[in-house]
């Protein structure tokens, strides 16, 4: 293909002492993404704290409380680029109480770097992070076995940790796992190979991040187009200062008598071509794509995740929350479904109450009809329960007031996911993944 630069989003998850911030600092530092003023600011802080070397972990701790306590308490996003790719890092805290932040960051990630301290091996927390990555279906996993310098760069230690980890990951159905030994502190196998891990044949972490294939991380087969916004312009408005400047208006879409009616949104999966037959759900009406319109002119074909406007040959009633699909790959339309839920709120789930669901562009009321089981994220055992507390992960059955148009999360991350909002507080209280 061409030399187009792609965007890769990844998260880092690890325990407090696994050296996660140091690893990020190392990635940024060795890829020359740290600026002099940032380095001098953290150098000053390091000196003030009596440290001998510059503490790279200070780079990612953005909040005052974090710098005071020396911990990471919220997801921080970091940006860096190499000539091959642009990267967005979601840095997630390792503390138990902040699991919800990992779910948050993982939900948009192509890849998860799960960090382990080579001296301590696979911990409960490692299992929890891996389980969350599998639940949220992060497409690619890297197990970064850090602090190899503290175990004499032992290949046997690395092999034993990898074997244990792979066995656990396989139970969760995770097969795209790459294990990399490294030392973030010394800099071995992060950006440069270093001289201490010559027995390791694979790529250093950064090289792996630059080359992993991410084109198939989105569903490329099933066309799903939730309507976000209906754009109407009346015929008499054309020719005005506003509309004349836009590429849209130079197209034949502009009908002086009827104006413009475009269904705006983002293709969540699959592709669409001008002339394709489409079905509108939940109504089931059908029509044909007249034009795929963008500010930069009409397209013959468009793909996920492009934001576009679609005009249809027939005038049918379509509003926000409806979904355009193709008849040969239909999603489910239903008022009842089952889901895996991660409870994010400090107030527990009350099954007597109604909540609000936001799913694609649709907002509806919902009820939790059953909690089938709660999962112990450490043992993967299922327990029965009547409520859910913060950080609980459970299998639930739900009912919604209006039908949702959905796929299983396993097939489609966009149309299989939803958030739950508490009407009383307006807080986001849960993340759901439809089974």
């Amino acid at each position, binding site marked *: 293909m061409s030399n187009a630069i792609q965007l890769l989003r990844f998260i880092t998850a690890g325990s407090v002492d696994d050296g996660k911030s140091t690893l990020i600092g190392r990635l940024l530092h060795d890829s020359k993404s740290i600026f002099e003023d940032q380095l001098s600011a953290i150098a000053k802080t390091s000196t003030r704290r009596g440290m001998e070397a510059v503490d790279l972990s200070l780079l990612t701790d953005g909040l005052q409380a974090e710098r005071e306590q020396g911990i990471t308490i919220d997801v921080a996003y970091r940006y860096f680029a190499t000539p091959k790719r642009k990267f967005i890092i979601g840095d997630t805290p390792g503390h138990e109480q902040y699991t919800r932040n990992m779910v948050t960051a993982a939900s948009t990630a192509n890849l998860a770097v799960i960090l382990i301290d080579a001296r301590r091996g696979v911990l409960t927390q490692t299992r929890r992070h891996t389980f969350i990555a599998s639940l949220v279906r992060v497409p690619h996993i890297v197990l970064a076995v850090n602090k190899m310098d503290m175990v004499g760069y032992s290949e046997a230690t690395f092999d034993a940790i990898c074997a244990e980890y792979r066995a656990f990951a396989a139970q969760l159905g995770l097969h795209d796992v790459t294990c990399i030994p490294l030392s973030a502190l010394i800099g071995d196998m992060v950006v440069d190979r270093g001289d201490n891990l010559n027995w390791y044949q694979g790529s250093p972490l950064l090289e792996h991040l630059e080359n992993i294939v991410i084109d198939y991380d989105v569903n490329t087969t099933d066309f799903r187009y939730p309507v976000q916004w209906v754009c109407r312009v009346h015929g008499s408005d054309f020719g005005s200062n*506003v509309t004349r400047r836009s590429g849209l208006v130079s197209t034949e879409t502009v009908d002086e008598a009827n104006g413009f009616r475009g269904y705006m949104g983002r293709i969540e999966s699959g592709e669409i071509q001008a002339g394709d037959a489409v079905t509108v759900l939940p109504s089931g009406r059908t029509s044909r794509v007249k034009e795929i319109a963008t500010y930069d002119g009409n397209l013959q074909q468009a793909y996920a995740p492009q934001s576009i406007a679609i005009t249809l040959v027939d005038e049918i009633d379509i509003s926000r929350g409806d979904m355009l699909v193709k008849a040969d790959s239909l999603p489910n339309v239903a008022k009842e479904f089952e889901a895996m839920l991660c409870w994010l709120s400090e107030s527990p789930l009350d099954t007597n109450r109604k909540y609000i669901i936001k799913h694609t562009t649709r907002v509806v009321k919902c009820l939790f009809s059953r909690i089938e089981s709660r999962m112990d994220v450490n043992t993967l055992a299922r327990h029965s329960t009547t409520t859910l507390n913060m950080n609980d992960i459970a299998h639930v059955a739900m009912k919604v007031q209006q039908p949702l148009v959905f796929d299983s999360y396993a097939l489609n991350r966009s149309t299989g996911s939803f*958030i739950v909002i508490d009407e009383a507080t307006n807080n986001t209280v849960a993340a759901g993944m439809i089974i």
Partner: protein
Amino acid sequence: MSSHVFTHLDALESESIHIMREVAAECKNPALLFSGGKDSIVMLRLAEKAFRPAKFPFPLVHIDTEHNFPEVIACRDKLAKDLGERLIVRSLEDSIKRGSIVIKDPDLPRNPFQSVTLLETIAEFGFDACMGGARRDEEKARAKERIFSFRDEFGQWDPKNQRPELWDTYNTCVHNGENIRVFPISNWTEMDIWEYIGREKLHIPEIYYAHKRAVIRRGNSVIPVSHLVQPKPAEKVETLSVRFRTVGDMTCTAPVESTAHTVDEIITETATTRITERGATRMDDQTSEASMELRKKEGYF
């Protein structure tokens, strides 16, 4: 997949358009904060891509410190006029006259007071969502902020109690009197902005390009001489070739030495600079390690 090429700029653009349309669809009375600076000019192009051929479903709002560079204000007015969009300007002077802002010296930096006028403007028009062109790579407190950032009735940001933000499913619910700040270009970097300005051939204020300017050196900073900043007796005025990486309050926005006259030349400089955007140019961020976080807690966007 076929042979189409979906670059990082395409990905960022589509994400931003999606965010703007969510705001338009779910918020009752949104606004787009527009200063005439490069990031907000990018925001305008994204809004055109999101909503044309219709008019924007929100007004443009500028909180004017009256310490702005005249070139930027001229660009602000020209762009709003060319686009045919409504521009609301509220000035810190109004708040000063009302007595809600009390300043010791009218020539001192005014960024700390912008929040007051912004909150007054939000109240005046009843905005429930304000879109801004802030980016997470600008500053470490911003790096922790959600795309949809919830504010209480005092406009305060509580960094330790943010709503989780999952997938691209944004919670836009607020109670009356509360509002959200929305940052559609959160995930863009300074480099992305320049690449996009180049790709879209956006017109930006001339002071972003290298030009000769009378400056004085104070500490590590180069400060432009203006009616607000005059040399002190011992200070020497020099004329240097400079450009601005950010344009804010004239009294605390420093240019960098540069000979970049085109977007391509700026991209080359941006790729090789060893100093962050705000580090080089914003004296108000250098007062303490948490200056931005503290200002945001007070309602700054």
